[in-house]
């Protein structure tokens, strides 16, 4: 049985392009994301994407996309982060690796406007299809509501 800290240490030895911060969060550059995630699924039995979300850091002009991945077989979890440029937010989709990314990526696209390339059906999921703007962005302005 391998525990979380040992897993992160092993990943740090094996992949030279990742960073690990003090919370044992793995930070991956955007262009290496897909091959890293594929290796996680194939070699480390991380077979379940529990959560996929994103945060808007408007001061640093970036979005941070967060993946919480769980191993149902081994029982450990891992948090992986990657950064996207705010002006051109494009990221490869992890839907081919974990099917559960389908709706979660649609939600992130809906509320923050991050485009996941390779997603099979990238439409809005919570708001109307003809809605304009992305409400979870920090610079989202909206007028309306009560009269």
């Amino acid at each position: 049985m391998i525990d979380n800290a040992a897993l992160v240490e092993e990943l740090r030895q094996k992949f030279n392009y990742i960073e690990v911060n003090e919370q044992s969060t793995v930070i991956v550059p955007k262009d290496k994301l897909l091959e890293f995630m594929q290796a996680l699924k194939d070699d480390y039995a991380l077979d379940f994407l529990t959560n996929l979300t994103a945060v808007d850091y408007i001061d640093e002009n970036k979005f941070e996309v967060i993946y919480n991945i769980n191993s149902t077989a081994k029982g450990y979890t891992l948090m992986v982060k990657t950064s996207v440029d705010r002006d051109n937010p494009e990221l490869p989709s992890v839907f081919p690796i974990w099917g559960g990314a389908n709706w979660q990526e649609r939600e992130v696209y809906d509320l923050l406007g991050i485009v996941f390339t390779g997603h099979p059906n990238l439409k809005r999921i919570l708001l109307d299809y003809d809605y304009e703007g992305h409400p979870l962005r920090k610079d989202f302005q909206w007028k309306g509501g009560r009269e």
Partner: protein
Amino acid sequence: MEVNKGKTQIEAVQKDIWAPEYFGDNPDLYNVHEVKRLVHLAPVEKVLNMARAHSIWPLGFGLACCAIEGLMAAQGPRYDLSRFGYEVLRNTARQADVMLVAGTVTTKAADFVVRLWEQMSEPKWCMAIGGCAISGGPFVDSYHVVPGVNKLVPVDVYVPGCPPRPDAVLDAFLMLRAKILDKREYLQRSKGKVVTG
């Protein structure tokens, strides 16, 4: 004969007063508006309204938490709506009389709320249950909430509260019954007050 003495005279006078089609085939028989003008069905309408008012069938349709109060708790054993005959929750819009809009109407949900309303057959009524359905409630400033279901469909009874108690929903049904039966004195009792049950 003595009896028919003035008959021809009367006929001649009638022909002067009345148009000739009143003594033969009446073309107005096929004119719907003319028949409506001549035939009044007010008493029948009263009877029909009695039947309608004592068997208001709600549409089984809940959007959010208020559905637990407005539809489920009011139908339950404690606040038994069945004693009025309103317990028959129809699951098809075709057979329902009243739509209880219970819960937050989001812009995405507005589409099918209107569609359900248009699928219901006349006569139909609508109740807005809870603050969200009345005015958007606590979410009125949000970017995805319709500020009141009266923007979409005509509302007959508003039931305030967050959530309204089931007795308030019961009271709303009684007010709707009074509205159908045209009992103005019943509705006058709660005029100028917010009825919360």
